[in-house]
């Protein structure tokens, strides 16, 4: 009987450890952003750790989504990418659309698409099994993350404060990514480090 309880207790400890381990993978604000390795559109593996000591912006993307179209067709996303890169950041667009779902493209198709959209991203990374998206808790396209040069996550959330598909809203919107980066560069605390993202659901498998 005692053996049985001992065994049960052991299983409980294991289960708890497993749950904690699962939780630890989640990208948490103010903690080290989880490292990852994903293929870019040329099939080359790229990892977050390549960009140590730099600001890194992660953008979850699906070009079929009307919220993503709002920011690309207006040039808003490309302008933000350029601005962030001018300020020293690396910009990684991540696509977690599963094969057969909206927004999933082959490397070749991505190359064409990037030209068409005029993206200024440093790389597009493909996450068709969704593991990296889920480890970051990416819910929507777009869903934006900013990582400090010291490796901690300093922003997680929406592109801006106007949840809509309407391009006309961009002009009066407060862009949270730009704000987070500018405040961090100025050595200040990020005023809105965590916001509720808006957009289409990420098309996980």
């Amino acid at each position, binding site marked *: 009987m005692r053996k049985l309880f001992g065994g049960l207790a052991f299983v409980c400890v294991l289960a708890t450890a497993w749950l904690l381990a699962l939780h630890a993978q989640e990208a948490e604000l103010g903690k080290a952003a989880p490292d990852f390795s994903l293929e870019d559109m040329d099939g080359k593996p790229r990892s977050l750790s390549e960009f140590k000591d730099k600001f890194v912006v992660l953008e979850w993307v699906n070009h079929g989504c009307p919220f993503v179209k709002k920011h690309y067709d207006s040039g808003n996303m490309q302008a933000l990418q350029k601005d962030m890169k001018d300020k020293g950041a690396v910009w990684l667009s991540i696509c977690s659309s599963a094969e057969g779902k909206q927004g999933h493209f082959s490397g070749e198709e991505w190359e064409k698409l990037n030209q068409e959209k005029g993206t200024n991203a440093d790389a597009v990374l493909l996450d068709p099994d969704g593991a990296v998206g889920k480890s970051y808790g990416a819910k929507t396209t777009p869903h934006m993350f900013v990582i400090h040069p010291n490796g901690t996550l300093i922003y997680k959330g929406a592109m801006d404060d106007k949840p809509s598909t309407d391009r006309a809203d961009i002009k009066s919107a407060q862009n949270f990514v730009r704000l987070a980066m500018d405040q961090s560069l100025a050595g200040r605390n990020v005023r809105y*480090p*965590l916001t509720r993202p*808006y957009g289409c*659901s990420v098309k996980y498998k």
Partner: protein
Amino acid sequence: MGSRGLASAAVLFGLASLGSAEGRSHVAAALLSEAESVQPGRPVRLGVRLAMEEGWHVYWENPGDSGLPTEVLWKAPEGFRAGPVIRPAPEIFGEPPVVNYGHDGTVLLVSEMSVPSRIRADGVTVAARVEWLECRDVCLPGRADLSIRLPVRPRMPAPSPENAEIFRSALSNAPVPPDGWEISAERSGGGLAIFFRPAGKKRARVRGAYFFSRAPGSTDPSARQRFSLGGKGYALACPFFEGTGHVGRADGVLVLYGAGGRREASLSIDVPVSP
């Protein structure tokens, strides 16, 4: 007679100039009136009906992890005033990490419009702009500009034979005030605990519950809510959305499930949350 019939059909069934910004819309929108005419001083109920194609859904006032709330903007002559939109209790769509609150099938979003006690014209036109996001595996923004013209009559309006049943059914499915229930809420760990039990003569056997918070970003749609029966009656633990430390009120729809997971009641609640 033929032309008169046509005119009255147009009056009662304001057709949509509908469309999504791109591609064909999968939601048909129409503006309906519960009554055939308007009497000065007597409120009238109007409803926006959204009929969705199989597999498509639109969103509740809190869309959940993604999506956009369905919004109705009324435009009526001076002196008319639209009350809050009465929506059906939402359904759950998707799975973690993206869980949504919305509606599929056909829904009627009802507003009670107050009517001034003096109207000079012999008819009034009420318009509504409806904006939604429709999703299946993909999403499209949708919008419709609807309008309806109703004759003004001095007598009590007759219910519209086509629409009265649609309104009755929609209103009987809308969340109800929690009469006969004792409800309280407190902050508990990283979330909200809602306690509820039948009061007085009320009897109920609840097998499960779910709380749809009206405010986006308060409770976490992707987190599992835990239902239990304890000393204080029934309890439902609802984890907060990431980054939310406290909410002042538990404002939303508490859905109660009976045997076999059937929805027994949808209670519209708004209680303070003790810290």
